[in-house]
């Protein structure tokens, strides 16, 4: 059983839009792209490496998949992360994407619940990670498919932008871990209630 873990960079007001760069996602006139970068430090990088070390595969929505597929195959920094992303299986859900050509990508068109359940039941260690992919993560939540969360809460408020927890049902979670970085990111890990 491989748990699905939503691992998301968030602000204090729950915004997840465009942490990595100004042009990453300007939908809705979002002007704050790139808010994560000033808060990156050595400990943050270490915690990311630790998190990525537990990943067995990735589940993506289309937008984040396309963004990552354009960047990571030719990345010149964060080479450990690049290697993990470029090597491990990537499952992308999209009705419009015609091909998924990034190495070891699998375009998923079937029923979300059936497909994700099948992936979770595959033997082996490690988590199925959902990074970015906000709307897709919300679909997983609505279908009770998420087993855990790693929330990287950054110490700032943006006042606008897409939020992770939008159009989702009531969910009870159990806190399993709290870490912090020197620049004030609080890393919270939760399990969905009833999961072991």
């Amino acid at each position: 059983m491989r748990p699905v873990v939503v691992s998301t960079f968030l602000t204090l007001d729950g915004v997840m839009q465009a942490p990595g760069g100004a042009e990453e996602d300007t939908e809705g006139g979002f002007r704050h792209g790139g808010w994560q970068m000033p808060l990156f430090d050595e400990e943050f990088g270490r915690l990311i490496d630790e998190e990525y070390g537990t990943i067995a595969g990735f589940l993506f929505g289309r937008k984040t998949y396309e963004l990552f597929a354009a960047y990571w195959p030719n990345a010149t920094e964060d080479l450990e992360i690049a290697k993990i992303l470029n090597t491990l299986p990537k499952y992308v859900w999209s009705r419009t994407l015609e091909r998924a050509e990034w190495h070891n990508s699998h375009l998923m068109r079937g029923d979300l619940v059936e497909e994700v359940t099948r992936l979770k039941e595959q033997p082996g260690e490690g988590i199925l990670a959902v990074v970015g992919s906000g709307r897709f993560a919300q679909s997983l939540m609505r279908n009770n498919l998420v087993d855990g969360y790693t929330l990287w809460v950054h110490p700032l408020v943006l006042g606008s932008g897409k939020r992770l927890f939008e159009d989702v049902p009531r969910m009870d979670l159990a806190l399993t871990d709290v870490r912090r970085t020197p620049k004030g990111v609080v890393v919270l890990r939760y399990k969905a209630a009833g999961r072991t």
Partner: protein
Amino acid sequence: MGRILAMEFVTLDGVMQAPGRPDEDTRGGFPYGGWAAPYDSPEQFRMASEGIGQPSGAMLLGRRTYLDFYHVWHGRTDNPFSEWMDRVPKYVASTTLEEPLPWQHSTLLRGDVAGTLKRIKAEEPAGMLMMGSGVLFRTLLEHDLLDRLVLLTYPLVLGTGRRLFAEGGPPATFRLLGARRTSTGVVIATYERGAATGGDR
């Protein structure tokens, strides 16, 4: 110069509405009032107090929270909070309340709340503690009057309800002073207004 400290209870999706009781605030048909109660723990009050630091000399409240606190806490002797709340000055922001206010030591803030608060901060050296009071919280952020935020994050998502950080509010950066957890999974994080350059706890 006094400081303004806010202690706020939120869910993981940022909902602050009615943490304490089912009938506390049912605006919008909110069905989950009292969501914080199951997570009470003996250590939570102590940890939150340590986040607040120096005891505050006054309370700062919006109308709704003020009236709710008055009905819940006023005049009781069966808890450690009522005596303090009855005793300290209480500043109440409201455009609809009229004096006299029901609770002793209450002062009504009308009109230019932000301007008035700047003056009062100078007069209350022991600082003011705010809880709940979502509308006033946003006013404080807009006018950069909040000095410290003790944020208690509960391990649940509600999917509906009024949020502490409303859409369209002003951007702000904070410096994390510390983050702890209770045995029930409530995370108590203390933030100081200012650039996010890291703390030491």
